[in-house]
């Protein structure tokens, strides 16, 4: 073992000793759990269409049901266990978004409904909303400019 004298040497030593995340296992679990959630969504969507709803309404119903289920599982202290196992598999679909709003709401309930739940509910999802909506507005403006031009060109 070499002598550790500089911060870089120490950092190297720490990196060597630190156990890595089991990436292959995590990817596999994320793949099948994420796939399962999406399949459930597809089944609900197909069922709605089978019962006579149009494409758009079916999509809304899928979102409502998946959000509802994951909010409920978060409340039962089950979603964090699924998340620990599946990682991105359960965070990336709309279920993770629901969890990221319900979990701070639960956490901050002890600080009251206005200053706790109300103001802290979006601490996790807030940045996604702010930059997601901002980005969509920008893309919308770009689309408007280029789309109008292409129409006038035609």
């Amino acid at each position, binding site marked *: 073992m070499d002598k550790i004298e500089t911060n870089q040497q120490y950092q190297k030593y720490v990196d060597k000793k630190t156990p890595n*995340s089991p990436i292959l296992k995590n990817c596999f679990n994320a793949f099948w759990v994420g796939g399962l959630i999406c399949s459930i969504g597809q089944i609900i969507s197909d069922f709605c269409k089978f019962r006579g709803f149009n494409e758009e309404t079916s999509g809304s119903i899928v979102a409502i049901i998946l959000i509802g289920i994951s909010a409920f599982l978060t409340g039962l202290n089950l979603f*964090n266990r699924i*998340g620990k196992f599946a*990682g991105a598999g359960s965070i990336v679909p709309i279920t993770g978004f629901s969890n990221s709003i319900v*979990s701070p709401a639960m956490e*901050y309930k002890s600080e009251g409904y206005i200053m706790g739940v109300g103001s802290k509910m979006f601490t996790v999802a807030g940045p996604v909303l702010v930059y997601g909506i901002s980005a969509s507005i920008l893309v919308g403006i770009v689309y408007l400019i280029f789309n109008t031009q292409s129409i006038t060109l035609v």
Partner: protein
Amino acid sequence: MQKLGKQTIKFDNPPKIIETASIVGPKEAQGPLAKYFDTLLQDEFWGEETWEKAESKIIKQTVDLVISKAGLAPSDLDFCFAGDLLNQCISSSFGLRELGIPFFGIFGACSTFVEGMILSSILADAGAAKNVLFAASSHFCSAEKQFRFPLELGNQRPPSSQWTVTGSGASIISSSGVGPSVDCVTARQNC
């Protein structure tokens, strides 16, 4: 008391650590150090409504325990130093307010306990106090809430992620008495 070098203080009348006490939560109770703690909790709430109140109760009970183990009354203590990880050191200040001991809130995260020990030793060696109490506390759930993510958030922790202790430690430094003595203290520069 004299300063040695850049960051060390040497005491003329080394103060003694006369008593210690600790209370820890359920996860620490399962660990290899469990037999050294005074009280092991089975429940993170300890009968309280919130984690912050539970943490406050943990530090209060730890301080009560160290005082009774030392065979002293709260009035025998001249000053106390305590800190935790929450805003305004709320669990320490609420936990210790009923004792009626002049209180200094300190914040040093991991180093809070040793900071308290250094400052207590200086007071005891300088003759400004006979008995000084110092304590530190943290609570996994309240620290996660303060600094990281809600507990119910479905994220993955890497295998090397650290776990904030649920528990509290308290000790009494005295200018006289029996126990390990504090001969010198060295404060590290912040990097």
